[in-house]
Each structure stands twice: as structure tokens, then as C-alpha cells.
């Protein structure tokens, strides 16, 4: 705090002075008001206002090179010597493009404006002193000013940066969720300002009459300094720090209500100052386009030089200019061929401007915008339970979705639900596998519930865990005496003791926050204090809470009802293949189901945010049926947990299932309910929170009876096992226990469970005091604080006693194995980057089809760099050797190429990613079809993606859901965020946000493919269009003395790009489908077209160029010879223009795969529009269009039969080669897309045939499509099952079901891993 005092002595501007508004009489606006210079809470994120829009937008648009170029061309046209077109007409294209872009910008800005308006008009209760009632009144956010005191209820969004003055909590604590700010979902504690003496009364808003000084607004969200001036006396202050401030955008949680003083508002809030603009990404195709635009520039320059040189030569043949009647020069000095060549060069730049496709970029933007709209609208990518569509955040990389070569995926929360379930534990070397019995129901139920509750991680869904009888027995008389191991009668190391301590640890060693009752505010929306009597009655309270949470709750009602429906539906068909036991065991459940659904119906609004812990089973219940028969203890039924990570939640929930129940937690105490003891409060001395280096967390508590100081640690097995006390390496008994535990851990990992190790240690008082002192020092040190704290934590976390370990299951999301399988079939390499341990990761890899049994597994684990290098080299050589062998024996039938899977752990990865090794690593990884990096840190994830992107030059996609994936998501070409359990940060950093992993399949295989195919064809077409219309002019100039003349009306010429032929390609770019989605999904290998860039290759431009040269030659010379001598220049040009437009439109028609009404409409309208445009324009005598008045030219031209005859033959001849090549290719050498098109056609024909036959079983593609959609509510099951059956039939793949099949599969894969371990070499 010292620096505050210093700061206050410095010059004024460093600090801002805030006077509470209620003690100042005049309005905020008045000139004498002390807060008048602070901004109000109105926010404005719009870029423009109505007045500034035009200049500002134009200024921004001219930052683009293409626009500048065209501006230059337009400017050139104003130079009389150079002028080629009418001055005004030459501006049409650029004006058009600028207008379209401006409209688009205006639209986007308008959306921002609306969103601002919505934010600004949110309501909040503000203390109002105007009437003498001293009341809080609702006021719009935008009318909140610095100095106001506001009142917020639980779950309110904080409208401005406020200093916390008062919280409903007796200790002045409040919790906030900073997800919107930094993406962290855990709750953060904030402390109200202490030390203020409210005139010796308790706090009331009107009693706060002190001024506050704090820093000027800044963007540092973790820093805040200031103080409250208690009196005019120097030094009589209360300091403020970051613990006292609540930042705008955070959500208040876990606290009934708070009141606070606004210190920063609107744009001066820290969140607004941190507001970043979305990045601009450029897609791979666009980079290819830019390359070809350069070719266009080269062509342009070549044409200009050629014509300029031609001009010089042509002029040079006339000795005396004055006698040549058709070269009028103002003076003979001008008749210098070289000077004229120079001048005409610029004229040609104007004339040939269209070779650079001006509308390309703006059309691309329009197309992408609409493509995104359609992706967003796709019902298949809509996730009902969370009511989420695809969110497209990047607007310009849709086609990159179709070119993905590598996918880097997170595991937890991405492949899996991130919904943890306690599955088994080992205590003191004894395994307690909790064999699941009614897995089936749990999945559907908890799955949907959990995702529903993902807004905050408030869940206390009762786990349908089968209790281990033995554990229950051990725990039945759990009491502190035994836990503290002071009871001399019990041997300190008895198993029972261990079990009890194990569960105590599970209950307390975490950061789970408990709330005992739903939050209620004493004040309603209008600022009236509610009478306290109401709050006693629970349902009424709930209603009140709902009121406070205004409309947002409505959403939940609806959601919940929907969910309930789907749940019922899901329960109907038991998909188990043995189909026997579930029914029977399920009969035990109905009471619970019934109850919970009753709860739901009664208080639907609770269940969303405030989910109650419904029941706790008593220990007296005998065995498996104990849940069903359990009574409900009323005092516990109100408990709900809010956890930072789902693992912790699972542990706490598991512990409470065993009646070892976490009841409450404050900063320095934790209350638990123990079966044999009742409620006990333990004093928490220290909380050593989790970090990624230690990979463990600890809590130091004081035993209430023995006063012993005990350290409980839980963490990754490696992190805990490495710090066990010596006896685990020396004494037989302990070694055995340790070995057993390790075995069990391995077993859990094999089952794909996440493992956590638990350990404890009793610290002698003296040791503790010593350490505590050092720790305090570390805490308060200013330099290297993190490191010192780490050291300090490591010092105390040593010599631990092993208690046991837990296995938590993280279920695979639905459809993950199919999706990964199909993505791999599509030629995409899938890498999984996870923080999990290797065995778990490998297991998940098998169950998610990342690895298949045919794949040879290469495991690279090394302790140092040399070993890593050797190992990788060794494997690489083997692979290369393997690859060579089949070639030597060519006579043998071609064996299937061997596939490899690479597993590398974090440590080894660190070596592999070093500069000199990365090449080797990439080569090795490149040989493998799938790669798993386990135990990798967020930075490593980012690095791997970066490496692949930069070194392999591949298009990467990263998908993840958590803050630890942000680096990777940002690094990748396409970042996809899963809007799942872990907050918004991944989504915020991503380009696309989807709700489930399996949506990725459709995103890539269907939408990606479409977008790529559309964009590629569109771009090629745009180049064709530009080139052909330029070449037409070029040929004419060969016959007009290289004078830079155009024979086509400049209105036609300039309108051609933006009006006559602009829309059909755009519509095709948005809607055309080369293949149906069903086909694309059924044949994932069709996706390869995109990554291999086959639709738009380097040759595409050349082909387009040659084709447009050919077509323009045809159009020009048919006209040239057809008209022969007797034709005027404008007739000649008009006929050519008609041929040109028709050629372009028919060309587009040839390129269209699927004709829907928009295509018909635009194609026909384009031509009609062009024709009418010509006729109408030529019907009026206008002189502005110097040099020519095209009066009646169009009419005269088209009324002559020769016009039609010329147009007909030139269009036919121009398009003949394309049609020939297309159809021959389609018939004789079809590529995969074409084959699939044939297949589709065939299917369609057959279906038509089938329709004629009665009782046909074959569904049409559409109805098949619908069927699937209908069954959508029941999840992915139908398709999944189909795929599965098929998979096992066709390839002998093991059956990978979600349900009962899972166990079997695991066993299979265990065997497999054992086999594969032969290939493993581990150093």
C-alpha cells in the first residue's frame, strides 16, 4: 500500500477524485460537480456516427490496395490526354464497390449500435438521493455515473467498475465470476472496504459520505489502487486494492446482494479498455488468389507495354502527322511516337483495368457473409440442450474449413464431456472398483443435466454411484478421533483409518464453494426492501430470486421443459445389446427420477442455476439399494456446490455420497459432516492452490481435537508419488502398498480414467511454524513471488504418506469415435494434445478411434535430449525401412500401407520441440496418421500447432474448450472453440464456436467442402470474367492503331463486372452444391479435394487464362469476319458485348452443378437486365457520355439478323471446348467428385424407379435425411450405431459402443496395447 501514499503526494492527474453523487446537490452535468469529468456508463462500440460515417468509412476503405489502385485509375481518367472513358462513367465500378462495402460496414456498425443500446438500457438499481427516501431505484446502465452507489443481486452482471462497500455476507465477502473478462470460471472472492466508520452506525448507502481517490483508468485488470478519504486529515484513509473492486462484465455469484460505489464507468472500465478487436485472418485460398492477382498485374503490364510499343511503331509509320486525317493532334510536337506511347500506356491501364478483378474482394466478402449465415442456420449444427448454434466469429475463412489438413484437438471437454464421474478408488493399496450397474440411465440423465448447468458450475446432481459396501462399512463410524489418528486404540496406519482420511481429503482438499441456500436479495427490482418473513418460506423465496433475475430465467424454463421431453424420449429404447439387467436395476430408481422431475415441475426456475442436492443416503441403508431407499436429510438438501474444475466436483460429490459431506467453506475454515461425528469445522491454515508446475494442490488444516497440523495433498500421480516419504522406498509393507496403488492407477488409466493421487502428512508444530514464517515471507515478497511460493509449497509438500488414488471417468462425447474416424478417412491427420497422463490418453485414443488396432504405436518417452533424438531417429528409420520393403517385391499384391500412431509425452515433447530437433520430430510425426502429445502444457500446445503450420506448411485447425487451448486456437489457421464447460475463453479466441465435437464432421466435410468448392470455382470464374472482357478489348486494339480505344460502350464495359454478370457467380458461390451433404458424409474421402487444393490449383489460373483468351478470340474474330467491312464501331461493340455476356452466363451455367431457383432467377434476370439496360440507355439522346451518344445503337444492332447469327455461333464456338473437356472428363476420367456425382444421380434414378413400385423400402435422399433429423433428439445414436455395426463387420474393428459395449472394448484394447508394447521402446 505504500505506493498509494506516495502517489497521493504526486501531481493531481495521476489520481481521480470521486465524490459520491448523493452528497453533491447539483446534477452530474453541472459545471461544479466534482465527478463531471468522468465518463458516464454509456458505451459506444460503434465505429461511426451518422455524420462521420462517410468520410471515415471512405478513409478506411482506401487503405485497401485494390481500392487505391482503382482510385488511381479513375484519377487517370481525368487526365484529358489519357482519358479513355467518360469521366463519370469510369467511376461506376469503384463507386459501386465502395458503396457495397460501405453498406456492409454500416450494417455491421448498426448491429454494434443495437447491441450497445441493449447493453446501455439494461437496468440496475442506483441509490437516489433526490427524494428524501434514500432509496435505490432502477436506472438504465447508461445513466449510471461515477460516484453512484449501486445495488446488485446474485447473478447480476456488474455494470461498471465498482468498489465494494457492503455485501450481504457478514464478513463482507462477495464472489464474482470473471469469465467474461479473463475466461476463468472459478469464483473469485472480493472483500468489501473495511475500516470505514459510518458515523458509528451500520452501513447504509446514504451514510457513505467519503470521497474516494483512485488511479486514472487503465487496462490492467489485476491491478487497482486507491483509498477512501475518511476525513480531511492527511493520512486518515482506508486503502483500496484489487480485492475491493468488482469489474464490469463480471457476474456476481454466491452472494445475496452487494452495494458498491462506481469508480470507473463506460469506456473507462477495465473490461472496455481491454476490449480487443477481432483478428483479421486470411484464408489459404485467398493467399492463392493474391498470388494470381499478381499474375493479373503482370498480364496487365504486359498488355499495356505491348500496346504502347505497338502504338509507337504504328505512329512511326506515318511521317507527317498533319496529313493523316484520322490522327488529330493539337500540335505536331505531340506527334512523337515515343511520347504518345508513354501517354497511351496510361490509357491502356484505364482500359485494361478490369483485368484486375475489382469486384472479386467485395464479392468474396458478400459470399462469405452469406455462407456463414447458412452455416449458422444449419439445424444439424444446432445443439438443443444448450440452445446453441454454430457461432461464426471469423468472417473470412469459411473456405479454410474445407482445406484442413491437420486437426489439433484438446481432449478434456472436447473429445469428452468434461463431466467427471467418480468411478473407482484405491485406498491404502486396496482397490475399490465401483462396477457400474445402471450406466445407461446415468449417461443420458447426467449428460444433459450437466450441460444444462454449465452456465455456472453449480451442480450437485446426485450421483447414481454404486456404493462400495466395504467402504461404507469402514466409513460408518468415521469420526475425528480416527481421522486424526490420535486414538491409540486404532493403529495409526490401519486401513480403516486410511479410508476415512481418504474421504475427508476428498471432501476438503479442493476449492469447491458451498452455498446452503439460494441467494436472495433483500431488495426487489424496484429497490423496495422485501419483508423478511417471506424468505422463510422456500418457494416464495425462489420466486423472488427469479424476479430478480428478470427475463433471463424464462430461457431456462423453456430449456428445461424441452430437456425433460428429450429425456423421456431417450429412456424409451434401451439400446443395450444384452438388454437384460438394466430394466431390473432401473426399477430401483423411479422414486428418485420421479422426485427430481417433481422438483423440476414445482420450481422449474431453481433447477437451472440453483440445483439442489436432492438427497443424501444414510449409512444405515444396507447395500446396493441404499439410494432408492435412502431418506433425505432436510438440512442437507439445500447444499449445492460450485467448483472450479469438474474433477473436484466429482470428488466432493463422491465423498458426500459416502456421507462425508462438505458443508461449508470460508477463507479459513471448512465445515464437513462426518458420518460418525456430525458437523465438524476444521481450521484451514493454508491453501496451496494448484499450479501446472507442481500439478498438485494441498490444504493444511488444524485438527480440532488433537490440534495436529495436517497437510492433505491431491494431485497427478507422478506429482504425488515423487514426493512420498522415504519409507515407501524402503519398508516392505509400504513398498507393497505403493506398488499396489501404482498398479491400480495404471489400471484406471487403462480404463481411460483420470487419476488423482491422495496423500497426507502430519506436520510437527515446530516445523510448521518455521515453514509458515518462510511462506509468509514468500507471499509478501515483491520479486519472483511466484517462484518463491512454488518453492515454499514444494518444501512443505514432501515426505508424504500415501492414502490412495481415485479414478474419475470423463465420458466421451457422443459421436466422437465416428467423427474422428471419418475425419481420418477424409485424410485429415488428427493430433490430440492433452494434459492427461499417457495411459489415459492412449486409452481415450483407442476408444475415440484415433488409434485403431492396425496401427503400430510408437511411443517416445525420453528423459533427455539425446535419448529423444536417438529414439525418434530409430523409429523413423524403421518406418522408412518398412516403407521400402513392399516396393522391392513388386510382384506381391500391394499390401495396405502400414499406419503408425505416435505417442509422445510432455517432457519428451519439450526436447523434441527444440530448434535442432523439430525437423526430426515433424518428419516422424508426418509419417504417423495420428499423434498424441500427453502431459503437454498450453504453451506446448501452441508451439506444436505453430510448428506444424510453419514447418509443414499445412493448414491447421485447433479445437478446444478451455483456457489452456487458447494458445493453440489462436495459433492455428482455423480455431474452433467448443462452448462447453470451461467458460468462454476458448470461444472468444476462436473463429468458429460449436457446441459438440461431432459437429466438426459436418462443419468440415459438408460446409467446409462446400465453401471451398464454391469459393474456388467462384474465384476462377471471376478471373475468367476479368480476363475475357479485357482480352476482347485487347484484340480490338490490334485493329485500331493501338490507340487505346474501346469499341464497347463504356457503360456496358464497366457495368458488366458489377451488374450484368456479377450476381450469378455470387449466387453460385453461396448456394451451389457439388454434392449432397449425405454423400459428403458417407464418403469422407471426398474431403481430400480441399486439403489437396484440387479445385483451385496453380494451374487453374493458367487454364482460366487460356480459356478466356480462346473465348475472347472467338468472340472477337467471329464478329470481325462476320461483319466484315460494313459495320460501325458501336454496332460492332454491341454485338460483341452481347456475345460476351452470353458466353459468360452460359459458362456460368456449365459451371453450375445444381440448379435451384436462385440460380435460374439470377441467370435469366442478369441477361434480361443487360438487354433492357442496353435498350433503355440507347433510347435516350444523351450527350454526357462523351464521345459517343449511343442513341438507338442497341436497337439498330439487334434488329439485324446478322447480329443474332454472329452471337449464336460465337457463343457456341466459345463454349464448345469447355463442354467437350468437361463431358469427356466426366465420362472417361472422372475424378472423385464426379464419380460421386454419378453415384448420386444413379441413386436418384433408382429411387425414382422405386417410387413407382409399391411397398418400396428404399427412402429418397430427402426422406432419409428427414429420418435422421427426426431421430436427432435421441442423439447421434442411429447413425452411430450404423457406423459401428458396419465398422465391426467391414474392418473387424472392435465394437465401440457407448453403452455396454464399452467394457468389452476396453478389454480388447488392453490386449492390443499389450501387443503393441512390443514395439515400444522406452528409455
Amino acid at each position, binding site marked *: 500500500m505504500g505506493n498509494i501514499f506516495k502517489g497521493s503526494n504526486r501531481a493531481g492527474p495521476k489520481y481521480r477524485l470521486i465524490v459520491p453523487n448523493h452528497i453533491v446537490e447539483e446534477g452530474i452535468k453541472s459545471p461544479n460537480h466534482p465527478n463531471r469529468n468522468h465518463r458516464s456508463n454509456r458505451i459506444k462500440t460503434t465505429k461511426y456516427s451518422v455524420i462521420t460515417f462517410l468520410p471515415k468509412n471512405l478513409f478506411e476503405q482506401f487503405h485497401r490496395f485494390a481500392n487505391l489502385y482503382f482510385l488511381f485509375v479513375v484519377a487517370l481518367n481525368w487526365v*484529358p490526354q489519357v482519358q479513355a472513358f467518360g469521366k463519370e462513367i469510369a467511376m461506376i465500378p469503384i463507386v459501386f464497390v465502395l458503396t457495397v462495402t460501405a453498406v456492409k460496414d454500416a450494417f455491421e456498425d448498426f448491429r454494434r449500435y443495437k*447491441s450497445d443500446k441493449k447493453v446501455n438500457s439494461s437496468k440496475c438499481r442506483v441509490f437516489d438521493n433526490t427524494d428524501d427516501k434514500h432509496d435505490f431505484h432502477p436506472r438504465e446502465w447508461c445513466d449510471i455515473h461515477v460516484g453512484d452507489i449501486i445495488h446488485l443481486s446474485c447473478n447480476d452482471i*456488474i455494470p461498471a467498475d465498482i468498489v465494494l462497500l457492503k455485501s450481504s455476507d457478514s464478513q463482507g465477502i462477495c464472489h464474482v465470476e470473471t469469465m*467474461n473478462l479473463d475466461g476463468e470460471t472459478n469464483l473469485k472472492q472480493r472483500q468489501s472496504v473495511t475500516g470505514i466508520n459510518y458515523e458509528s452506525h451500520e452501513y447504509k448507502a446514504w451514510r457513505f459520505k467519503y470521497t474516494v481517490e483512485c488511479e486514472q483508468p487503465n487496462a490492467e485488470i489485476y491491478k487497482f489502487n486507491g483509498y477512501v478519504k475518511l476525513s480531511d486529515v492527511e493520512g486518515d484513509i482506508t486503502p483500496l486494492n484489487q480485492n475491493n473492486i468488482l469489474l*464490469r*462484465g463480471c457476474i456476481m455469484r454466491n452472494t445475496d446482494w452487494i452495494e458498491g460505489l462506481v469508480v470507473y464507468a463506460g469506456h473507462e472500465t477495465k473490461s472496455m479498455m481491454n476490449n480487443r*478487436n477481432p483478428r483479421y485472418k486470411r484464408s489459404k485460398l485467398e493467399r492463392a488468389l493474391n498470388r494470381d492477382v499478381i499474375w493479373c498485374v503482370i498480364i496487365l503490364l504486359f498488355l499495356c507495354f505491348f500496346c504502347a510499343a505497338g502504338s509507337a511503331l504504328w505512329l512511326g509509320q*506515318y511521317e507527317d502527322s498533319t496529313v*493523316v486525317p484520322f490522327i*488529330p*493532334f*493539337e500540335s505536331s510536337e505531340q506527334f512523337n511516337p515515343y511520347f504518345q506511347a508513354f501517354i497511351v500506356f496510361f*490509357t491502356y491501364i484505364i482500359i485494361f483495368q478490369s483485368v484486375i478483378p475489382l469486384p472479386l474482394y467485395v464479392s468474396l466478402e458478400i459470399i462469405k457473409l452469406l455462407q456463414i449465415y*447458412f452455416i449458422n442456420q*444449419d*439445424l444439424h449444427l444446432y445443439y438443443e440442450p444448450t440452445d446453441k*448454434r454454430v*457461432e461464426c*466469429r471469423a468472417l473470412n475463412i469459411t473456405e479454410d474449413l474445407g482445406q484442413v489438413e491437420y486437426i489439433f484437438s484438446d481432449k478434456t471437454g472436447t473429445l469428452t464431456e468434461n463431466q467427471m464421474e467418480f468411478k473407482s478408488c484405491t485406498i491404502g493399496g486396496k482397490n475399490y472398483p465401483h462396477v457400474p450397474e445402471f450406466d445407461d440411465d446415468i449417461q443420458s440423465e447426467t449428460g444433459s443435466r450437466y450441460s444444462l448447468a454449465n*452456465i455456472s458450475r453449480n451442480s450437485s446432481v446426485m450421483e447414481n454411484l454404486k456404493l462400495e459396501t466395504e467402504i461404507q462399512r469402514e466409513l460408518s463410524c468415521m469420526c475425528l478421533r480416527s481421522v486424526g489418528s490420535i486414538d491409540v486404540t486404532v493403529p495409526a496406519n490401519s486401513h480403516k483409518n486410511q479410508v476415512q482420511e481418504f474421504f475427508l481429503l476428498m471432501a476438503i482438499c479442493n476449492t469447491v464453494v458451498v452455498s446452503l441456500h439460494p441467494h436472495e436479495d433483500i431488495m426487489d427490482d424496484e429497490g423496495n426492501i422485501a419483508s423478511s418473513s417471506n424468505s422463510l418460506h422456500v418457494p416464495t423465496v425462489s420466486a423472488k430470486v427469479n424476479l430478480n433475475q428478470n*427475463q433471463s430465467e424464462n*430461457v431456462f424454463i423453456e430449456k428445461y421443459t424441452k430437456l425433460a421431453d428429450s429425456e423421456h424420449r431417450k429412456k424409451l429404447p434401451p439400446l443395450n445389446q444384452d438388454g437384460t439387467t438394466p430394466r431390473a436395476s432401473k426399477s430401483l430408481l423411479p422414486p428418485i427420477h420421479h422426485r427430481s422431475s417433481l422438483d423440476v415441475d414445482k420450481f422449474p426456475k431453481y433447477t437451472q442455476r440453483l440445483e439442489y442436492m436432492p438427497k443424501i443416503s444414510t449409512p444405515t441403508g444396507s447395500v446396493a439399494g441404499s439410494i432408492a431407499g435412502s431418506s433425505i436429510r432436510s438440512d442437507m438438501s439445500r447444499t449445492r456446490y460450485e467448483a472450479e474444475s469438474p474433477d473436484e466436483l466429482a470428488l466432493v460429490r463422491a465423498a458426500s455420497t459416502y456421507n462425508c459431506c462438505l458443508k461449508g467453506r470460508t477463507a479459513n475454515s471448512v465445515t464437513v459432516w462426518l458420518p460418525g461425528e456430525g458437523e465438524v469445522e476444521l481450521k484451514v491454515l493454508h491453501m496451496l492452490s494448484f499450479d501446472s508446475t507442481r500439478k498438485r494442490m494441498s490444504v493444511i488444516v488444524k485438527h480440532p481435537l488433537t490440534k495436529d497440523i495436517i497437510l492433505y495433498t491431491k494431485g497427478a500421480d507422478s506429482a504425488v508419488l515423487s514426493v512420498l516419504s522415504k519409507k515407501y522406498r524402503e519398508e516392505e509393507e509400504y513398498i507393497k502398498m505403493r506398488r499396489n496403488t501404482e498398479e491400480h492407477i495404471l489400471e484406471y488409466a487403462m480404463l481411460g480414467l483420470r487419476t488423482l493421487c491422495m496423500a497426507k502428512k502430519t506436520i510437527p508444530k515446530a516445523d510448521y511454524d518455521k515453514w509458515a514464517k518462510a511462506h509468509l515471507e514468500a507471499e509478501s515478497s515483491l520479486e519472483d513471488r511466484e517462484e518463491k511460493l512454488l518453492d515454499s509449497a514444494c518444501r512443505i509438500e514432501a515426505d508424504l504418506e500415501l492414502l490412495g488414488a481415485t479414478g474419475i471417468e470423463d465420458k466421451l462425447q457422443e459421436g466422437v469415435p465416428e467423427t474422428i474416424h471419418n475425419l481420418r478417412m477424409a485424410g485429415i491427420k488428427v493430433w490430440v494434445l492433452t494434459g492427461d497422463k499417457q495411459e489415459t490418453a492412449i486409452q481415450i485414443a483407442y476408444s475415440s478411434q484415433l488409434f485403431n488396432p492396425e496401427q503400430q504405436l510408437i511411443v517416445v518417452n525420453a528423459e533427455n535430449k539425446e535419448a529423444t533424438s536417438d529414439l525418434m531417429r530409430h523409429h523413423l528409420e524403421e518406418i522408412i525401412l518398412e516403407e521400402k520393403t513392399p516396393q522391392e517385391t513388386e510382384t506381391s499384391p500391394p499390401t495396405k500401407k502400414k499406419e503408425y500412431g505416435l505417442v509422445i509425452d510432455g517432457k519428451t515433447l519439450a526436447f523434441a520441440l527444440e530448434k535442432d530437433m523439430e525437423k526430426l520430430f515433424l518428419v516422424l510425426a508426418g509419417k504417423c496418421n495420428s499423434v498424441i502429445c500427453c502431459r503437454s502444457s498450453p504453451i506446448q500446445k501452441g508451439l506444436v500447432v505453430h510448428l506444424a503450420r510453419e514447418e509443414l506448411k499445412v493448414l491447421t485447425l485447433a479445437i478446444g474448450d478451455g483456457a489452456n487451448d487458447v494458445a493453440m486456437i489462436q495459433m492455428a489457421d482455423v480455431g474452433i472453440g467448443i462452448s462447453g464447460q470451461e467458460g468462454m475463453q476458448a470461444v472468444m479466441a476462436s473463429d468458429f464456436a460449436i457446441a459438440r465435437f461431432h459437429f466438426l464432421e459436418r462443419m468440415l466435410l459438408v460446409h467446409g467442402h462446400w465453401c471451398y468448392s464454391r469459393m474456388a470455382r467462384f474465384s476462377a470464374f471471376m478471373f475468367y470474367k476479368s480476363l475475357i472482357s479485357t482480352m476482347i478489348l485487347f484484340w*480490338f486494339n490490334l485493329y485500331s*492503331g493501338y*490507340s*487505346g*480505344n474501346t*469499341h464497347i460502350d463504356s457503360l456496358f464495359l464497366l457495368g458488366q463486372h458489377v451488374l450484368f454478370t456479377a450476381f450469378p457467380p455470387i449466387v453460385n458461390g453461396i448456394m451451389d452444391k457439388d454434392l449432397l451433404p449425405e454423400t459428403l458424409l458417407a*464418403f469422407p474421402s471426398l474431403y481430400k479435394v480441399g486439403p489437396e487444393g484440387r479445385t483451385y490449383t496453380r494451374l487453374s489460373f493458367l487454364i482460366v487464362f487460356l480459356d478466356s483468351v480462346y473465348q475472347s478470340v472467338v468472340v472477337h474474330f467471329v464478329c470481325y469476319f*462476320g461483319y*466484315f*467491312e*460494313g459495320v*460501325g*464501331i458501336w454496332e*460492332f461493340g454491341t454485338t460483341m458485348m452481347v456475345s460476351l455476356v452470353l458466353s459468360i452466363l452460359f459458362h456460368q451455367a*456449365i459451371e453450375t*452443378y*445444381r440448379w*435451384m431457383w436462385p440460380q435460374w432467377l439470377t441467370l435469366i434476370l442478369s441477361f434480361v437486365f443487360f438487354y433492357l439496360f442496353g435498350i433503355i440507355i440507347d433510347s435516350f439522346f444523351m450527350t454526357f457520355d462523351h464521345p*459517343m*451518344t449511343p442513341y*438507338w445503337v442497341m*436497337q439498330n444492332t439487334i434488329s439485324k439478323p*446478322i447480329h443474332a447469327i*454472329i452471337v449464336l455461333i460465337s457463343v*457456341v464456338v466459345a463454349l*464448345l471446348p469447355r463442354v*467437350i473437356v468437361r*463431358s469427356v472428363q466426366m*465420362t*472417361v476420367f*472422372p475424378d472423385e467428385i464426379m464419380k*460421386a456425382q454419378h*453415384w448420386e444421380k444413379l441413386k*436418384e434414378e433408382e429411387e425414382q424407379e422405386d417410387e413407382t413400385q409399391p411397398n418400396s*423400402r428404399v*427412402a429418397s435422399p430427402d426422406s432419409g435425411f428427414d429420418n435422421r433429423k427426426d431421430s436427432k433428439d435421441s442423439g447421434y445414436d442411429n447413425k452411430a450405431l450404423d457406423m459401428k455395426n*458396419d465398422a465391426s463387420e467391414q*474392418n473387424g474393428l472392435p465394437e465401440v459402443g457407448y453403452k455396454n459395449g464399452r467394457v468389452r472394448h476396453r478389454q480388447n484394447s488392453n490386449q492390443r496395447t499389450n501387443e503393441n508394447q512390443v514395439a515400444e521402446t522406452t528409455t
Partner: protein
Amino acid sequence: MANGTPGTPGPEAEKAASRRPKDTKLKQQRLPAWQPILTAGTVLPAFFAIGLAFIPLGVVLLVTSNDIQEYRYDYTQCVNSNEDKCADLLTNLTATGQTCTCTFKIELKEDFVGTVYMYYGLTNFYQNHRRYVRSRDDSQLHGYDVDSLYSDCEPFKTKKLNTSVEMKIAPCGAIANSLFNDSYTFVYKGDGTKNVNVSMLRTGIAWASDKDVKFGNPSSKNGSDDPWAGFTNPPNWNNKMVYQLDPDDENNNGYKNEDLIVWMRTAALPTFRKLHRRINHQQTEFTDGLPKGQYEVTIDYAYPVTLFDGTKSIILTTTSWLGGKNPFLGIAYLVVGSICILLGVIFLLIHLKWGRNTYRRQFVHQSQTRRTSEMINVTSRTTFN
């Protein structure tokens, strides 16, 4: 979307309604579609159709073109009575304003049946040069009272009559200045016995739209009776004023003079012909066209073309619905039609060989035994190779 705007009430507060997309055919991209596939099989009927349409059309065009009778005579190097080449005289004598007259005989080998037109043809004359094309003022030609002429008319915008007086040129610009000004008289000699003047019409040679609307003479200026006051003639016009182009016919004088109008409609290519006269078929000798025999042509050779290596010709021709004699289109249609037929045959062969090819059969085979649900699965394993 409130992307990047922290502090926005979360999406859950934004929408009370479900965000489920609407299930419409358009939004779900399931519009009914027609999917033509360009294969040899589907394209070959089109080829035959084009071939069958083009060949007869080509024949018609060719016949039409061949029916047109045309006679062309290049008189660039014609000589006057002194056996001097007018072209040479002209280069030397331009300034003096002297004229040179050529007289020569042409012989039509057969009767020209129907309406006969007389064209003059120029070669190497770049009427499509950028500067040339622009060098006109359509407002002036329309008869508007223009105060200032287009600067593109330079250097034929104004003319200095003497040091102090500078007058606007009517009509301004290089096109008008270079107005073709040879004149012709035709005398029908028959087999040498006859001597009938072929009378020719000066009107009806320009586009009606040009004559009626685009070109118009200025009305009298305020006060002054003479609408041409204040204007002078283009320098190359040998003192002829624009209102002297056809003094006999009020409706063919000034800007409305059809020779001028025809000249002002610039040609597309450096080799061009322009319609000059119509034969007056009212005359008893020529009611059915021009009879075969000798004609004596007398030309006031005034237009220099040798300076730019040009030639000039007179062309006598009948006409058809297609225009002038030009076999190109007929041949082109025949050729393209034949090619299409040929392609049709080739495609037929391709179709027979590959049309129902192996992969297609493979799919057929598979789909015969399929059940709906299995279809996708079976084939998803099938690579397309």
C-alpha cells in the same frame, strides 16, 4: 452479436426464444434442385442438335451470300485526262484547291437484280482511332445551341480566320474535318451503244434514328436569322460550309446531310465501306437493277488516301437480309455444324465404351443388394478408385 463487448448481458439474457434455426428449405440448403451432369451421353444429343441446326443454316447463309452480286473497283491510282495520277496531283496540289477528275470504264459481267447500292470503300483508314473517334461534339450535331465545344474536337475546334478572329468550326472535330468528299457520276454504256446517266439517290443511306433524332440543324439564334452565324467550316472542306452540303434538299442539308451522318458513324475497322448512294430504280433502264454492260465512271478525285497508304474503291452491290456479300458466316456455320456432328459421333462412341462404365456398374451391383441403412455404410468403405 456483442462479440468482444464485455459487459454485455450474456446471451442467455438476450433471447427469450429458442435459437433453434428455422427448418425451411432455403435455410437448410435443401431447395429442390435440378442436377444436370455433363457426360458424353447427355451432351451428344446437344451436339447432334447443334449440328443439324447449323448445317442447314450455314447452307442458307452461304446461298444468300452467294446470291449477292458485288462489283468492286479500286480507283486509288486512277488517272485524269492528262494521264496524271490524281493521287500524286493531290499530294502536291492540296493547298491550291484544284480538283482532279478521273474517268474510267467498269464492266458488270451480269445483271445486278434488285436494289443496288453504291458504297465507297477505304482501307488503312483508322476511323476507330481513339483520338479520332472522340473528336466530335454530339450536342453540336444534335442542333443544340452550344456555347463551348468539346475540347476533344481539338485541333478542329476553332479556326483562326485571321490574326484577330477565331471562329468555332461547324461541325467540329477530326471526323467531320475528314469528311469523304469524292463524288461520282455513272453513265450506263451498255455494250458501248448506250449513254444513260445513272441517277442516284443521296438520301435513305443513314440510320433513320440518326437522321431523325441524333442529328439536327440548329434553330435560329436569338435575334439573328442565321443559325450558322459565328461558325466556320472545317479546314479540309475547301470553303464549303456545312449548310452547303446539299443546297438542293433542305432536309439533307447541314448536320442532317446523310453523307455527313454516314461518315460520322465511325467504322469499326480500318478497312471499311460506307454506303454512299442508292441507285434510283425509278428510271426506266434500271427498274430491275443494274443491267450488265459497261459503265463510265467519272470521279472528282478530292480525297487523299495515299498519304497513309490507303486505297479507295467504289463498290456496287445488291443486298440481302444478311447484309453484304460475305461467305464467312455460311462457311463458319457449315464447319461448326459438321464439327458438332463429328463430335456427336465421337461422343456416341465414348458413351458406348465408357458411358455405363465399371465404377457405375460397381455401384449398381452394390445397390441392388443393399438395404437403405446399409447403403451408406457399405459404400463408405468403397474408395472411388
